[in-house]
């Protein structure tokens, strides 16, 4: 904590500062060597205008602004337009009308897309269903991930890196392949699980288990794909926990099980929260898993958005769907961002 505070109080030294001499000098030498000495005054003037700190900030800032933030504004804009048979397939909000006598600048905010999304049962249900599935999947991830992370963090120091590697390894192999593997296992006709259960006589051959194309497939797919995102922040948190706290608790008369609930779990909360956000938020908008493993039986919003966009070519409607999805997720996203920023600043 205090280390983080120290950093905050310091003037940020490198590349900032009133002392632009270093960079300017360096730049000047480079320009002269490149036989561009004549350009030096101009370049230096330019550099001087955007001071070092400003430039350093400006590079990533501009990139993210243009390619992350502005696109959302465009989505917002297009969500208010109408679909049209044109390229691109939507109308402009601002039009110049010519009625033969005068020109009119018209500005239309079309709310039909929002009306569609908010009034049609399929959309409302898709949002609710997605949120429910994401919430249950997050809980399942926590249920499997916490004991794993805990066991890893309490394993002897020599095998911890190996265990960590084993958790990360599936994450490095393709996400699609992992989803595909579950299709191979869960398929109703000729899937491995059913073949095995039938061979063992647990279920009759003419009544195979239907898991694929049901909500269960969603849970399995999401939990399997997102599990590392739950385990890693939890492990990072549990691993650095001061074990003398547990000794102190035991010393004060607290049994190990109780100490787990009254010391370990509360202290692991930042990890639990980070893990839950990392699973829940993207899971609400998940597209690949429902598309490959579930299909039309379970309506989720990510898939609906994609179909509206790709099959129906209704870009304004898809935009409205994503604006509302974002509106739903903005609270968890902001909470996640603030928590992460706090953790980083505390020097974790």
């Amino acid at each position: 904590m205090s280390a983080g505070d120290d950093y905050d109080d310091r003037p940020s030294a490198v590349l900032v500062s009133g002392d632009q001499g270093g960079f300017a000098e360096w730049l000047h030498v480079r320009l002269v060597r490149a036989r561009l000495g004549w350009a030096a005054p101009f370049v230096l003037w330019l550099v001087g205008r955007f001071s070092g700190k400003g430039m350093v900030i400006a590079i990533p800032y501009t990139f993210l602004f243009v390619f992350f933030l502005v696109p959302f504004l465009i989505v917002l804009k297009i969500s208010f337009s109408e679909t049209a048979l044109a390229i691109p397939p939507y109308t402009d909000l601002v039009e110049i009308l010519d009625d033969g006598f005068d020109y009119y600048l018209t500005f239309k905010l079309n709310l039909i897309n929002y009306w569609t999304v908010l009034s049609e049962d399929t959309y409302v249900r898709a949002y609710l269903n997605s949120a429910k599935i994401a919430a249950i999947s997050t809980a399942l991830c926590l249920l499997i991930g916490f004991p794993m992370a805990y066991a890893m963090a309490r394993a002897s120091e020599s095998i911890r890196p190996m265990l960590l590697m084993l958790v990360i390894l599936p994450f490095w192999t393709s996400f699609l392949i992992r989803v595909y593997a579950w299709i191979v296992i869960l398929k109703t006709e000729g899937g491995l699980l059913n073949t095995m259960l039938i061979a063992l006589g647990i279920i009759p051959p003419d009544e195979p288990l239907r898991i694929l194309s049901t909500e269960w497939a969603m849970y399995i797919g999401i939990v399997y794909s997102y599990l590392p995102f739950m385990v890693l922040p939890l492990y990072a948190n549990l691993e650095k926990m001061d074990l003398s706290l547990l000794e102190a608790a035991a010393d004060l008369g607290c049994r190990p099980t109780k100490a787990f609930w009254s010391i370990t779990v509360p202290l692991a909360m930042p990890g639990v929260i980070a893990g839950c956000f990392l699973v829940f938020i993207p899971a609400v908008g998940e597209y690949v898993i429902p598309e490959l493993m579930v299909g039309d039986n379970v309506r989720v919003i990510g898939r609906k958005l994609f179909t509206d966009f790709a099959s129906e070519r209704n870009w304004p409607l898809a935009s409205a769907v994503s604006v509302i999805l974002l509106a739903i997720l903005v609270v968890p996203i902001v909470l996640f961002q603030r928590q992460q920023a706090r953790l980083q600043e505390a020097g974790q």
Partner: protein
Amino acid sequence: MNTATAARVPFEPWKDPQAKPYIRIVNVTKTFGDFVAVDNLSIDIYQREFFSLLGPSGCGKTTLLRMLAGFERPTSGRIELDGVDMSTVPPYERPVNMMFQSYALFPHMTVEENIAFGLRQDRVPKDERNARVEEMLGLVQLSKFAKRKPHQLSGGQRQRVALARSLVKKPKMLLLDEPLGALDKKLREQTQFELMNIQEQVGITFVIVTHDQEEAMTVSSRIAVMNHGRIAQVATPTEIYEFPNSRYVAEFIGDVNVFEGRLSEAAADHVRIAPVGGGGEIYVDRGTSAAQGATVWAAIRPEKIDVALTPPTDPSVNCIEGTVWDIGYLGNLTIYHVRLADGRKMTAAVANRTRLREQPITWDDTVYLTWAPDSAVVLVS
């Protein structure tokens, strides 16, 4: 709360053959793999003692403390507390509390909640719990900070919270692992006295682990000096300092000049030692267990040596001649490093009673180091 102050009898239960030891550590050994951390060690500690385990890092003192707390089980041997064998009792069932070196304050709880934690485990009723927490907060003068979280406190305040938390259950024994190690020198000295006052007030037996000999000297009723998992000496601070039983103890506690020599005369009430490097014999007015002719060591504390520019008038006084090699001025003391004729060095510490010495001794002066017959200690190991 009163016996120690009211009656002016010295508190020395270890000298009383009738007194029953409160904590008995009997032939305790602890090994980690091949490493022997504690080696067949036995100590008796009496009720209301302030007992120090002193030694360099790795001497096994912390392992011993953790066995007392219950975090480690002895490989062999027995630990008894108030007549009950504790060896297999888990830490959460021992009537013993510990103050951790890192304090181990629960970061998600307030000061109050930290102190109340132990009482909650025992399901102490709410009213009594609050009263006892309040009493503890008062004792460590933190009443104003009850609602703060540990990270909002200074190092000294955290130390006091840790103390309050470990005292609130009124344990039969309080274990303190380097309790003042994280504090700066000034605060440490001040806190030492606070700790002693609190111990006297609550009347609980304290066992403290420290590597700081001054701290051990200040606070303890008795000190156990440890070396490689064994006890080198158990005695009061005065005895440890004035009558160390070995060179290890003499050198570990304070500064000391040690001369190797042969016992040239061993009488019941005095001895003479002929130093190996030559020079005059050293006369000590106490007997020793070693036989005449044995190799022994004479240990003399620097502050017991007097430095003069002229030889002593009485020729029977212990005296060595040398030249001043280096002078260290510490304000209250001046340390003289004196080189003897045979190349050995001796250290003498002289208190600066007056502002200026009449005859200031300076570098390369020839000086005469003298000490009284009762100043040296004869060590046989």
